[in-house]
């Protein structure tokens, strides 16, 4: 999680009318938000688009941020929900366009410059995780990759910790099974 003291100062300045403070908040958190949107949406184009929308929402809604939770948790929530909207919308479009799974794999394949820094196993994991239902995918990412506690994830997603534990457990089992099948073939 990102530290919040400086964030709160910038938020206060922005709410007092200092637009430059908002730009500073964006620059400070752009990688943090992009990391979330990239992991959930699975490709750079959707991730960058979604990250921009997250900050537009942040601009509109910052006044409603009560500081009851950490700013980073609030930002996690906005970024996660916005990213989930993208993958739901993608599924909706797929439902009507009768696209096959192969096309989705092509669409979400990483682009050349990213391929330079990606490992084969990470790509396989990405693809497998993307086949999980939305909640399992998100919980897996927030828990495994971001290292958030169940309490923090419950705060981000607004669901009970019991449900999250079950989701994570199912996700780990499914991902392990799927990766096992891939490795058996190769």
């Amino acid at each position, binding site marked *: 999680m990102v530290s919040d003291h400086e964030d709160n100062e910038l938020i206060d300045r922005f709410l007092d009318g200092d637009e430059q403070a908002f730009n500073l908040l*964006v620059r400070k958190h752009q*990688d943090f938000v*992009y990391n979330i949107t990239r992991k959930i949406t699975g490709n750079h184009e959707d991730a960058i688009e979604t990250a921009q929308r997250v900050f537009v929402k942040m601009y509109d809604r910052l006044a409603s941020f009560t500081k009851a939770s950490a700013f980073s948790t609030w930002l996690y929530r906005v970024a996660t929900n916005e990213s989930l909207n993208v993958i739901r919308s993608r599924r909706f479009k797929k*439902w009507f366009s009768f696209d096959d799974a192969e096309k989705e794999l092509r669409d979400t394949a990483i682009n050349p410059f990213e391929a330079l820094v990606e490992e084969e*196993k990470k790509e396989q994991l990405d693809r497998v995780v993307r086949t999980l*239902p939305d*909640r399992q995918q998100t919980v897996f990412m927030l828990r495994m990759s971001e290292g958030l506690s169940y309490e923090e994830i419950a705060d981000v997603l607004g669901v009970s910790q019991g449900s999250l534990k079950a989701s994570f*457990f*199912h996700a780990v089992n499914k991902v*392990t099974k799927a990766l096992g099948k891939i490795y058996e073939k190769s």
Partner: protein
Amino acid sequence: MKNHKDCEIIRRRIEEGIIGTAAIDRSELNDHMQSCSDCRTYAAQLETLSAISNVRYTLPAHERGSFSAKVRTRIEDQKTSRRKPAFIAQPAFQIVVLIMIIVSVALYLINTEPAPVFVVEWDNIEYLNEYTFYYDDMIIPDNGIIIDLYAETLFGEDFYHDDFRDAGYFDDEYYYTIDLLSPEEIEDIIQRMEGA
């Protein structure tokens, strides 16, 4: 019979240790791990997945400098579009909305929607097969009893145990990660719930 409540506690501690939100003395867990292959498997799964999922994405260099300017442009565009006459005030739009409302109400009244169909995941709960009489027809009956369930509809909507609990199917005290329970414990829970 091994103590399955211990498994749940041990697994949470394994998670904390491997995923890195807490320092765990893993030697403390050894006694249990040596005698429990399920927990050993779970720890091995987590270690493998953790090793390959620990990637952080950052904005590509060519996006880094222009990102906040693009956000600012979007915000300004949004402000401008808000100043334009609202399209909802246009008569054509209002007629379309009215038609949509009428069609929606008509569809609701006709109520041709079929009963919800659930695809229930039991793939890692092999010994529950004997209880599939609840799910043979893949339709959860009105009085169905649900334990540790993840289900998704044909349309991809997810349902979790708390969704079913909120719908009144069962009380949270009966909920437990199902594969941590023995068949005897499951039998006991089902009998208690059937008797309730």
